[in-house]
């Protein structure tokens, strides 16, 4: 069906959303235009294009783009399409090229997208197409900016600047970067691309859903603890794998106390000073390296922040303590790829990076002990919502009316509140009902 703004607005109520937001392909198309086409979207990290000529091919919503580092040192985000007949210009995931040569007719562009060579150029004499003519260059996305090395792009020329848009979510990025003694992160150790047969919003919501871990992850977290006891391993030498898995089965009280905080533009976080990552053993030499770099007081501040999952709506989630991000790639209304990337904290002991690698193996891999059960929940929700019974609505009633605004102007609630879901859909509705980009 074709949706009017009134019809879209009617899909989101104060305490519930219509099931079609997860299942209607038409809604998905509008989301790609009005949310993914307007918001700031995470593209990649500057460390992936360290040197001039480095490129990284990725996507913004369903649009294929290339992030490049040009000879002037600047990072550009270009549409991955030759200006001639539209062939995909870069065909692999990443690499290095002084120039980008289209594999079809051999037209050549520099890494800023400027057309620099056409074979048999005389054929364009007197034509509007050709070198030095702007429409013949590779199109750049409307806006590119970065924050602490994380590169964002927006397909819309207007809208808030990146820093303003990030709001309180910026602190999560700051804390992740500050955990490096040099304040510097670099992508390392590969990536998982995990296919989910469910709508992208289900993953984004689940990252701040504190009502599910003790149910969905009982079989992995509870089992890990029992196996550790059964194997008779030394109790004072708890392996990181166990430290990591056990808190997933923490009780409701623990998750209530973690709390929820939300900021404008759909961003939110679970935890603040306490999270499921709080009780990890210290890595030898790490605190010392931070103290050398920042002094005792600032080190204490950095390590006192223990946010669980930060959602930077709509395109990624991050874990500061694990220094990893999960990037959301919507493919279709019922298909989403979640990319997991790990950052090395430059200047920190290698063991810290290796711990993050272990964490990602255990929680983000296709074969991990936690994620398939989340995916089963999304699958069942996607399947269940395709059932067109009389109940058209998905409930978001939990702790309705109990949200608070703190002294910093942040919206807060107890950990298991549906506040973040209501908050995400308030943002969703605002993007979706604006005909033109703001």
């Amino acid at each position, binding site marked *: 069906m074709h949706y009017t703004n009134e019809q879209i607005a009617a899909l989101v109520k104060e305490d519930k959303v219509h099931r079609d937001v997860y299942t209607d392909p038409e809604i998905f198309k509008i989301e790609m235009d009005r949310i993914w086409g307007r918001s700031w979207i995470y593209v990649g990290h500057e460390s992936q294009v360290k040197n001039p000529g480095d490129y990284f091919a990725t996507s913004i919503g369903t649009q294929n783009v290339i992030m490049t580092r040009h000879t002037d040192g600047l990072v550009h985000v270009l549409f991955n399409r030759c200006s001639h007949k539209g062939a995909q210009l870069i065909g692999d995931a990443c690499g290095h090229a002084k120039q980008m040569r289209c594999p079809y007719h051999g037209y050549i562009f520099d890494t800023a997208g400027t057309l620099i060579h056409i074979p048999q150029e005389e054929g364009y004499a007197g034509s509007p197409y050709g070198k030095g003519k702007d429409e013949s260059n590779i199109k750049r996305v409307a806006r590119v900016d970065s924050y602490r090395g994380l590169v964002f792009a927006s397909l819309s020329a207007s809208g808030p600047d990146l820093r303003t848009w990030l709001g309180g979510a910026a602190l999560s990025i700051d804390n992740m970067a500050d955990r490096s003694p040099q304040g510097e992160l670099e992508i390392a150790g590969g990536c998982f691309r995990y296919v*989910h047969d469910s709508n992208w919003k289900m993953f984004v919501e689940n990252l701040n859903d504190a009502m599910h871990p003790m149910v969905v992850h009982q079989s992995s977290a509870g089992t890990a603890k029992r196996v550790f006891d059964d194997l008779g391993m030394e109790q004072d030498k708890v*392996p990181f794998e166990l430290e990591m898995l056990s808190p997933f089965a923490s009780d409701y009280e623990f998750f209530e106390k973690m709390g929820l905080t939300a900021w404008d533009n759909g961003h939110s976080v679970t935890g603040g000073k306490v999270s499921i990552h709080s009780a990890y053993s210290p890595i030898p030499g790490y605190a010392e390296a931070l103290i050398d770099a920042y002094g005792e007081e600032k080190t204490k501040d950095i390590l006192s922040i223990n946010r669980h999952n930060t959602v930077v709506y709509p395109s990624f989630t991050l874990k500061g303590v694990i220094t990893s991000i999960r990037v959301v790639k919507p493919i279709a209304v019922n298909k989403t790829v979640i990319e997991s990337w790990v950052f090395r904290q430059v200047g920190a002991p290698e063991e810290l990076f290796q711990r993050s690698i272990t964490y990602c193996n255990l929680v983000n891999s296709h074969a991990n002990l936690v994620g398939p059960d989340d995916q089963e929940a999304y699958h069942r929700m996607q399947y269940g919502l395709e059932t067109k019974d009389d109940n058209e609505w998905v409930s978001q009633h939990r702790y309705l009316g109990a949200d608070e605004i703190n002294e910093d102007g942040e919206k807060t609630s107890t950990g298991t509140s549906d506040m973040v879901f209501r908050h995400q859909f308030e943002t969703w509705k605002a993007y979706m009902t604006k005909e033109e980009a703001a």
Partner: protein
Amino acid sequence: MSAVAENTAAMQQPDVKDLEQFLFHEARLLDEARWQDWNDLFVENGEYWVPASHKQPDPKNHVSLIYETDLLRAVRIKRFKHPNAFSLKPAPRSSHMLSNVMLDEYDAEKNECVVSSRFLMLQYRREEQDVFGGGYTHHLKIEDEGFKIIKKRVDLINCDAPLGNILVYF
């Protein structure tokens, strides 16, 4: 370790037929979901590793689809029977087929060998079937009563592709 060709005189060098039988037996244990019997094929703290990138050099500095020793294998195996492991209900089924078995290395002093093979595995769960394929590298301890797995490395040809759930061991 020295190359196999230089060791043709060594009496204890395992017969490829025996190695094949061991690998077929291992595959059968997996297909019959006899997880504990399969786990018993490993030496203490034996490694099971499925890299996430082509020619991945090590499991410590790069993510892996699976990297497990005793603790994590025991957790995964116990989870297969957990009533609330929702992604395993209904239980996944598998069919492992392997061929091209070759003895690559043999160390007479340590009584260890390295065996390579190619495999195909079908994974089935709830109306969906996936096909996985690639290479196995088994690093084995040769004991009087048979072989034990020191390390098993599984190189999927599509290890770095977008993939859905992997629910059983390769």
